[in-house]
């Protein structure tokens, strides 16, 4: 097995968030003797930044990253990418919600911003690689080319699910120093190294949305784009009216709380229908389905040439990947941006959600992925 190794003469830029992971990633690279510099993305005009101060690119993060870089004795630069982030992540995020989907903004940010524009920028500054604190592994050939991506060794922390959309040509310039580490070891190292972030909490929220206000945020942004979020009907799977909702953007498949429907204790959102602006409720078993299609496909392997193929498919960050058949939705359409795939699980899975990513694995190797488009209900 080929490990993620490259010569110590390489210059490595580390995307630093001030958190424990990226700080330790930087420390490990410094220890290996690389020429290392830190970069932090500035994605907001901080005058109107979201209140949550814990996200990876907040003002506090920039300060923490600067402190960590100083501790490690490496240069640190702030790279302003507000426009790219707005166009490439925030806007599509809001538009997806308006279409009744539940997007993965981290997937977009990784593909378009971090391993897109930021990678270009650090390469122009002389870096051979861009490293991050992601828990994922890369395998490199001796000549540095043809890299495979695998899940991180610490399966509790594995982040390969958020990395499938990075284009394969980019992989050879990436580096994930924590891929073979466990989170507990990373924390221990951080505190041994006296890194300021050793005790920082981890963020779970969408970094640009003020805590708990995703619906309000998306509604306001869409309104600014001239798209009204309107109340609509809530029905059950049989079509019976149950009440009304405050706008599709406030719901996601599998959601149980905050539905505002009386007697809905055992009711879940099972489908969002943007064409009729309707929320469909059902019981837990109504969330089950075996089949879906996906689009925006990206391959990190040659698996596309082997379609139809058997793979483990993960449909949510917290989903346990399950065996499935992956095939072309319209046979003969071929590779390319228009490619659509049909995925059929061996056993029904719960709450497959349009807008989320479907990532295909062979064991722990990432084959590729796509964005879930439509789910076939029973």
């Amino acid at each position, binding site marked *: 097995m080929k490990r993620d190794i490259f010569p110590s003469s390489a210059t490595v830029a580390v995307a630093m968030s001030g958190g424990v992971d990226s700080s330790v990633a930087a420390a490990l690279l410094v220890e290996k003797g690389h020429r290392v510099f830190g970069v932090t993305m*500035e994605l907001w005009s901080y005058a109107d930044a979201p209140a949550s101060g814990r996200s990876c690119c907040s003002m506090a993060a920039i300060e923490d990253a600067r402190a960590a870089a100083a501790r490690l004795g490496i*240069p640190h630069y702030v790279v302003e990418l507000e426009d790219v982030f707005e166009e490439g992540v925030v806007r599509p995020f809001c538009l997806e919600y308006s279409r009744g989907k539940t997007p993965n903004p981290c997937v977009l940010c990784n593909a378009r911003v971090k391993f897109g524009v930021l990678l270009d920028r650090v390469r*122009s500054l*002389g870096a051979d690689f861009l490293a991050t604190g992601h828990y994922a592994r890369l395998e490199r050939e001796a000549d540095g080319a043809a890299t495979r991506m695998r899940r991180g060794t610490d399966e509790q922390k594995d982040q390969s699910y958020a990395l499938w959309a990075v284009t394969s040509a980019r992989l050879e310039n990436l580096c994930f120093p924590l891929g073979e580490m466990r989170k507990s070891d990373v924390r221990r190292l951080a505190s041994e190294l006296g890194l300021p972030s050793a005790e920082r909490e981890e963020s779970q929220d969408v970094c640009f949305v003020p805590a708990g206000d995703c619906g309000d945020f998306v509604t306001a942004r869409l309104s600014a784009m001239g798209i009204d979020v309107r109340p609509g009907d809530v029905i059950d799977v049989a079509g019976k009216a149950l009440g009304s909702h405050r706008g599709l953007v406030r719901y996601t498949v599998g959601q149980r709380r905050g539905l505002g429907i009386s007697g809905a204790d055992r009711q879940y959102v099972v489908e969002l229908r943007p064409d009729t602006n309707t929320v469909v409720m059902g019981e837990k078993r109504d969330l089950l389905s075996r089949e879906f299609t996906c689009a925006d496909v990206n391959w990190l392997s040659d698996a596309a040439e082997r379609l139809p193929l058997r793979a483990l498919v993960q449909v949510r960050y917290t989903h346990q990947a399950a065996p499935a058949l992956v095939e072309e939705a319209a046979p003969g359409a071929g590779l390319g941006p228009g490619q659509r795939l049909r995925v059929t699980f061996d056993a029904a899975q719960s709450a497959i959600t349009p807008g989320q990513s479907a990532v295909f694995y062979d064991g722990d190797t990432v084959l590729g992925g796509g964005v879930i488009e439509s789910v076939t209900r029973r």
Partner: protein
Amino acid sequence: MKKVYLDHNATTPVHPEVVKAMLPYFGERFGNPSSVHSFGQEAKRALDEARGVVAAAVGARPDEVVFTGGGTEADNMAVTGVASALCNKGLHIITSQIEHHAVLSTCRHLAGMGYEVTEVPCDANGVVAPQAVRDAVRKDTVLITIMHANNETGSIQPVEEIGRLALERGIVFHTDAVQTLGKLPLDVNAMGVNLMSLSSHKIYGPKGVGALIVRRGTPLVPVIFGGHHERKKRAGTENVSGIVGFAKAVELATRDLEATEAHVLGLRRKLEEGVLSTVPHVRLNGHPTKRLSSTASICFEFIEGESLVLSLDMEGIAVSSGSACTSGSSEPSHVLLAMGVPPATAQGSVRFSLGTENTESGVDYVLEVLPRIVERLRAMSPLYRQSGTCV
């Protein structure tokens, strides 16, 4: 790693003699100048002395020096103070498109409150034409504010002519001389200014201190209230140590002005000639001759100035893209745009600003490193490839 600091228009190292002059005022001479006792009197004397030094350096009277918390505060005070004092006379202010944001943003703030602001343009050399100012004058014009030399390009503005026309028309004239103190001889009488902003940290003094020269009889409402300090023009206990340091810096800079100018001009010429002869597709910004000796603003086509700044930093060379205050922003410089530089070219601007401690060998080092970096950045630039200029 060799370190070469070429960002003196952003700030300068504090001169050891300045540090020495300041130190007693952190320790045994800690008094508040407003106190009546001996401690206060000692501080007050230091303040008086400093005021005298700063006044003398610019041809003003000591009672015309109002110490501030820096150049930006002085600009704010001048623009807002005069506009407020004369709001019953008129609401029109004339400034230029190339002012520092300390002036521009203040004017724009006032514009949002009902004042009218005319931002006159500059020519391709970054110089404001007196005629443009004259044409902008209206019956209700109460203030003209035009900087003495631009912080990004170093282009020197015709303030004497503008001062004459302001006097003719009875309009208050303010100039921001933050970049020219210690670099050009300053004389408020010859320049015909009513107000002049000065800063300490651009001339090897401490940060956070500066002055607004307010000629006698100039209408000015304070912007900071709360005491009788600075002849009721700027409340707040004076930054005595800072002011003492500022005065020392003024004294040294004024004394050594000619020698410093000759030194930095020699180095700048070497730098400019070196860059022009080794790097293709560059553009020198600003006036060819009427320009601060310290400043070289250069556009490197097909690349982003910010990338060049970071790359040079990794080699120990400190420069900036645009002014320090807008650095880090991907917006092209408002000054270069006003000069008619195309936005894509303006993105590639880098400012080298030299100072007393720079040496020939430092410039040699820059000339050794810079062409290599520019070449590397261009090799990665899609703009460069599309232009067909690469071989």
